[in-house]
């Protein structure tokens, strides 16, 4: 995830392209990251305020405990089940995606206004919870585990698919009572993040091999449709491209 302090090593394809794009357009005046007063032509410093994302490193979980991760993997695999259309949410990397998001600025709502008082408000006033996503997940998963243990004497991940679906539906409807963070809100957050993981660029850890893009026919990070815009009502069958490259660039042989 592109976080504000993201340390980066080596020169990536993006940086190389960034440099050549810069030389092609000398007209663009720019700045040195540290200088805040600009006169005349400032120096150019790529991605000074926020570097682009890099693929999440490593196999280990960054935010979730092993148990939490197993539960989330089971959930995302029911929200996006494997079938003839695509692999399931787990194999697509949705849980990895959520883990990395929670470890980044999203997990702490670092960019959001989180000053008290936290009034209840009307539905129109939107999310007013004082809890940040890291807490919402931690509390929600713990209460889900408690519920499954007391109702089924088993972990969510040990239940069969039908049982899991029933529980998820009950969460969605707010029919299971959670103390710390409402179950319906917890479900909505997990669903939103799961879909983000399924559809976002694979550099964030989900959407393995651009599986969702291939499924629906979205060509991804292509940037030029001038030759296609007037091809009306035609199937274009464009191979999708990620900001990390194409499938064939990332596999050897």
């Amino acid at each position, binding site marked *: 995830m*592109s976080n504000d302090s993201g340390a980066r090593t080596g020169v990536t*394809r*993006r940086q190389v*392209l*960034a440099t050549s*794009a810069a030389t092609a*357009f000398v007209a*663009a*005046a*720019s*700045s040195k990251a540290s200088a*805040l*007063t*600009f*006169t*005349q032509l*400032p120096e*150019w410093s*790529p*991605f000074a*305020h926020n570097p*682009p*994302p890099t693929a999440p490193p490593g196999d280990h979980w960054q935010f979730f405990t092993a148990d939490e991760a197993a539960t989330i993997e089971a959930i995302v695999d*029911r*929200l*996006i*089940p494997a079938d003839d*259309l695509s692999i399931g949410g787990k194999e697509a990397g949705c849980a990895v995606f959520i883990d990395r998001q929670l470890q980044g600025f*999203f997990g702490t*709502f670092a*960019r959001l*206004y989180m*000053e008290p008082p936290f009034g209840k408000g009307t539905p*129109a*006033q*939107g*999310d007013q919870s004082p809890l940040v996503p890291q807490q919402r997940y931690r509390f929600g998963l713990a209460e889900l585990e408690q519920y499954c243990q007391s109702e089924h004497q088993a972990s969510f991940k040990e239940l069969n698919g039908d049982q899991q679906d029933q529980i*998820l539906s009950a969460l*969605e409807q707010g029919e299971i009572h959670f103390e710390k963070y409402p179950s319906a809100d917890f479900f909505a957050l997990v669903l939103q993040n*799961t879909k*983000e993981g399924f*559809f976002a*660029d694979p550099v964030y850890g989900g959407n393995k091999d651009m599986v969702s893009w291939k*499924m*629906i*026919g*979205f*060509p*991804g*990070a*292509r*940037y030029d*449709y*001038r030759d296609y*815009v*007037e*091809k*009306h009502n035609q*199937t274009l069958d464009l191979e999708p491209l990620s*900001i990390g490259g194409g499938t064939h660039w990332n596999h050897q042989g």
Partner: protein
Amino acid sequence: MATKLPATDVVVVGLGWAGSILAHELAEEGLNVIGFERGPWRDTAQDFNIASAPDELRYSARQELMLRTRQNTVTMRNNTSQTALPMREWGSFHPGNGTGGAGNHWAGITYRYDPSTFRLKSHLIERYGQQAYNDSNLTLQDWGTDWDEMEPHYAKFEAIAGTSGKAGNIKGEIQEGGNPFEGPRSGEYPNPPLKQPYGPTLFAKTAAEMGYKPYYVPSSLVSRAYTNPLGVTMGPCTYCGFCTNYGCANYSKASAITTILPALIRKPNFIAKTNSEVHRVTLDGSGKRATGVIYTDASGRTWEQPAELVIVAAFILENVRLMLLSGVGTPYDPRTGKGTTGRNYCYQTANNAQLFFKDKNFNPFIGGGAVGMGIDELNNDNFDHSGLGFFGGGSTRVTPIGAAPIGNTPVPPGTPKWGGQWKRAVKEHYLGNMSVGCEASSYAQQGNYLSLDPTYKDPHGYPLLRMTFDFPDNDMRMAQYVTDKIGEIGERMGADQVVKTPRTRPWNNLSYQSSHMTGGFLMGSDPSTSSVNKHLQTWGIPNLFVVGASAAPQNPGFNPTGTVGALAYKAADAIRRLYLKNPGEMIG
């Protein structure tokens, strides 16, 4: 305590569209200009690189380019009986931050308002009578200017932005293929229209068969390589579909950073101070003269920058907040309808019809924020409102902005939200759906206004802006009417399913509607009901100009930025032509 800096000629607060225009025009005049921008310096090569720009999670879902609410947000409520709460995450609208402002991630639709808009109240009373106007319960006002005064400034803004389109009315002659409801233009658009994908093409064909007059949506995503009058070159739009909420990597989308700042930053008499947030405008003891601004820089130090001329161009929300914080004008009182600062806050009434086709492929990922076709028969007072029970209307358009899949995989109502059935529906409908939008007017009523929040503060301890707003009855009736009409067009286009979504109350922060907020520091000819005169000069403080959509007394069924740009050129022209020769109030 603020440390006082050496004085300068001009300070400009905000380096988005309006501020960059004013800063450039006044620097041209030879004045020493300092531009303050609360966000970072942004430019295309550095921030919107082609290899990282098309990233839906980063730019759209996580709102990378928007002002972070932690730095500043607004509080909201629907009426005065409720307690306003902060927008902790942007939902309804998406304010910008950094040079270019919201103009970096805007959609680029560049309208001129129609002539009747500038004298709306007078026009409606003339056409429908005083009684019908009174019955509407609206608090409309005239602008104190007119089409003839605005036209040259619209033309200037379009030339800077490279606006692409087809004129509908040149010097009174209606032009085939353009929007016949346009006011008379002095000339053609600077660039020809963009190419059109299938969705807008099918819409335009059907609308024409139904007797409407389809036109190319005027677009500041340029259709070809273009060098503007400042010598800044833009590249042709590639219909990349990562446009609204994103920066453009092709130098195709007009923004201050692609059209003005590259020329302005080279001027030795201009300085940009970024990551520098202005807190208020200082006034002298008489309250009749602005003396400069107080701001905090990135290191957290607070300074006073004295200046002869103060221009506030910080987007509608911050324009109004800065005026309230600086004690400029009388705060508006919703009980009495008296007071000017915060008055006539309006929004946009966004309506939609989603169309699902079984047998069509729109390739919805091809497009851009302003790529599309529209009709104007349902807008403003372009149709007879006698007996309808409402005034106003909207511009009806099909503008495929792109269809990155986190936010653009609609499924028919009743589909489960997850699981195998949901996934099947997503796949089935992705390529075959499109939507018809109607961006409709928002008219003022007494209870809608802007003020300072009594509870919530920004990180510097200054009160947040509080928004008290809900859609008037008038606008709700209008929304039903226009949405039924666009639904009819959808049916005629042959959609298998038409899902009509007229805007409904209460106004909420749950989903994006538009960033077209207006009012709060109105333009007019009467100081008891307006804040600035027709030159955007503050009544009673002649060296303070407040420029932006804050000046609009109510919002027509059009996007605002063509008019924001024109107002900025109008103010600059008055300062250059009149004010500098005789620094005082310029009434005439």
